[in-house]
């Protein structure tokens, strides 16, 4: 078992994939956010909104975990593939 750091929760740095209009708004195809272990999709969105460009997001953007749409309460684990999904327009 690892020794605890200065925080009660272990922190993880989570890469977040961006596409299309979100990639344009953030001027990046990927950002990184720091989340506590056990954080949910809801926590992730709150953290992204704190970023200067985070206000470009709509009220409830879709999030994918490991290439599946995720509900707000789903827990994010270290190593998960996380993506913000703009309104899709295929077809």
């Amino acid at each position: 078992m690892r020794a605890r750091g200065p925080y009660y929760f272990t922190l993880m740095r989570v890469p977040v994939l961006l596409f299309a209009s979100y990639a344009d708004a953030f001027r990046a195809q990927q950002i990184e956010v720091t989340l506590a272990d056990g954080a949910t999709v809801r926590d992730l969105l709150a953290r992204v909104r704190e970023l200067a460009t985070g206000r470009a997001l709509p009220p409830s953007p879709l999030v994918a975990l490991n290439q599946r749409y995720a509900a707000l309460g789903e827990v994010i684990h270290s190593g998960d593939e996380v993506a913000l999904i703009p309104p899709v327009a295929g077809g």
Partner: protein
Amino acid sequence: MRTALVTRAIDAPALLREVAAKEHGATSLFLGTVRDVNDGRAVTGIEYAAYAAMATAELDRIATEAVKCFRTELLVVEHRIGEIALGDVSVAIAVSHAHRAPALDATRYVIEQLKRRVPIWKREHYSDGASEWIDPTRSAREADAATGETHVLTFDPRVSTAS
């Protein structure tokens, strides 16, 4: 069953041949093509971008749902990615079945689900040099705002695909 994101032209006759089977009496094909006008603006070209890994997985999930629900293995979906010209085919769905109703139902199921769930985005280039990522939920929201209605016209895949 086969699904694919492709960067080359979609060959509709080849897809028809791919789903043909001598025990199947009905074949349905749907093609999406790039229109020259959208919301009254002259479109000069289109670019499709995708979250490729997830788009591939989601297309496969949709096709698998259709195969189970409508009971045919002969279902092929291709979606083109990248720059494509006006009139070109962006998506093709081909299905064959012993009977016509499930062949038609499966085609409709796949295109409806694809449009709601597959992470693919479309950027339109206009004759005035501008370009824009298309948000199909925006026109619905703006229409709601204009009429004061608040019903939800859009689909949240997190809800209906939870299982």
